[in-house]
């Protein structure tokens, strides 16, 4: 059964847009041209109705979620369990967005517009959260979910709550590692470790770069069983220490040092993509390839979204191309 899923991923992979086409799309000057260029691809039908950049984003999100949810249909029970937990990252992203909007007292209609349909990825129904009267009700609703720890917390800073959601998510993913084939576990753990390293690095640089409270930054760190430990990270005091300890993340750290958060965001995905692509051949017929396909889908989604928005902002072509997550040459 898992072989079937891997084969499906190989088949689906051929439907991903080639690098050349992504670069071509990035050089278009109008959103209409962008929609037209994608009309013969899998995006064609969904984008045919799109009139604004917001419509394009919504259509791209739909296709992305479709692609991920399809994988659940072909997954054996164990793998499905892992994938559902892995996909909870989008649920967490949604919960964070809802939480922020509740704090800003935004109406349900506005919140509905910015939500990724994570229920289709095996996530919980977010409707009650969106309809919560206020922030307190939103927090109390979490008591009946896997995120119940948050409902018992009494913290004022929402950043800590966001972090707690992420912490619960990663704990859950590490717990479900046993559901995937034994051979793939170290590689999947390694990728999760890189993700957490990058998150923790960014958080721990907050006091150095932006004068954030060290205790707050400490509470925003997430335990990383597959990377640098919190204790080790907390011993790093300067940018030089960071560069020495994480030489592979030099470009990421340098982007943060230049306060180019947008570039750091791109580097984050480039590092993950490099990490996954490095195992591409050796893991050709393993579950790891499914994870590679999921990441490729997300990268394509982000690249297309980035192109659409940068066309909307009329950014120069070279800048647009610089925003793409493409494997390093």
């Amino acid at each position, binding site marked *: 059964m898992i072989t079937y899923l891997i084969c499906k991923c190989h088949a689906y992979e051929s439907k991903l847009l080639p690098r050349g086409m992504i670069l071509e799309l990035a050089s278009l000057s109008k959103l209409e041209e962008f929609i037209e260029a994608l009309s013969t691809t899998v995006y064609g039908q969904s984008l045919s109705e799109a009139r604004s950049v917001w419509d394009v984003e919504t259509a791209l999100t739909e296709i992305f979620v479709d692609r991920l949810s399809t994988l659940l249909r072909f997954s054996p029970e164990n793998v499905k369990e892992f994938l559902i937990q892995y996909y909870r990252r989008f649920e967490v992203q949604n919960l964070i967005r809802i939480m922020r909007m509740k704090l800003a007292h935004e109406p349900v209609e506005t919140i509905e517009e910015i939500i990724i349909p994570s229920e289709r990825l095996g996530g919980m129904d977010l409707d009650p959260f969106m309809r919560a009267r206020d922030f307190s009700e939103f927090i109390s609703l979490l008591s009946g979910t896997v995120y119940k720890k948050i409902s018992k917390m009494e913290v004022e800073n929402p950043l800590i709550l966001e972090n707690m959601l992420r912490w619960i998510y990663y704990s859950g993913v590490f717990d479900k590692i046993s559901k995937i084939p034994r051979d793939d576990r170290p590689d999947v753990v390694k990728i999760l470790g890189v993700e957490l390293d990058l998150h923790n690095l960014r958080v721990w640089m907050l006091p150095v770069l932006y004068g954030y409270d060290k205790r707050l930054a400490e509470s925003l760190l997430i335990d990383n069983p597959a990377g640098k430990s919190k204790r080790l990270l907390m011993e790093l005091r300067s940018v030089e220490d960071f560069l020495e300890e994480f030489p592979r993340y030099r470009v990421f750290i340098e982007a943060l040092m230049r*306060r180019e958060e947008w570039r750091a*965001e791109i580097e984050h995905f480039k590092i993950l993509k490099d990490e996954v692509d490095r195992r591409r051949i050796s893991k050709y017929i393993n579950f790891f390839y499914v994870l590679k396909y999921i990441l490729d889908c997300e990268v394509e989604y982000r690249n297309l979204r980035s192109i659409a928005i940068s066309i909307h902002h009329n950014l120069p072509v070279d800048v647009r191309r610089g925003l793409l997550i493409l494997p390093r040459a």
Partner: protein
Amino acid sequence: MSLTGVRYTKGFLLDLKRRLEFIKDAHDLLEMKRDQLMIELRKALERFKELRRKVEDEAEEVYRELSLLHSTLGSADLETYSAYLKGRMEVKMIPRSVIGVVIPMLREIHIPDYTNLYPPQIIPLAEKTSTLMKDLAKLAELEAYIENLAEDLRKTNIRVNALEKVVIPSYEETVRRIQGVLDDEMLEEIIRLKQIKEILMRGRTA
């Protein structure tokens, strides 16, 4: 323009001359004020040009950062980031007088703090926007200052011109006229006295 209620007396002439001196002093003072206003206005315009260029550069940078962040994070995330901001931008204004011109001064500009509150992704944009807002407020203050200064300069100029071209010449003209009349009267008086003297002399010899 001619003065009304003119009396052709020595007392009135003296009073008029005293008033003319006062008006001339006032004219000199207003001229000095006008020059000073011109200097202030020129300086303020220089500062305005500089600040405006700075604000334009900052606004461009903010828009660039916003576009890049929007492209990277997407609309939904970007929209939700601003929700954590507590408080609003507040500006307190007090009127202040500079060389007699009342100008609005920004006493304090309060920008909501975002430290320890925002996720890292959004901080550079928040920092840049915050600086832009502060400088925009300063630019507005300077603009109001220049407007008031220019208006006062215009009024002062009208006053100086009115004194120079109308009031002072009419006073001088009136003084000259009274002086002329008084001189004529005095000459008349002398001739009259001479004639009386002649009549008296003729009476004695006869």
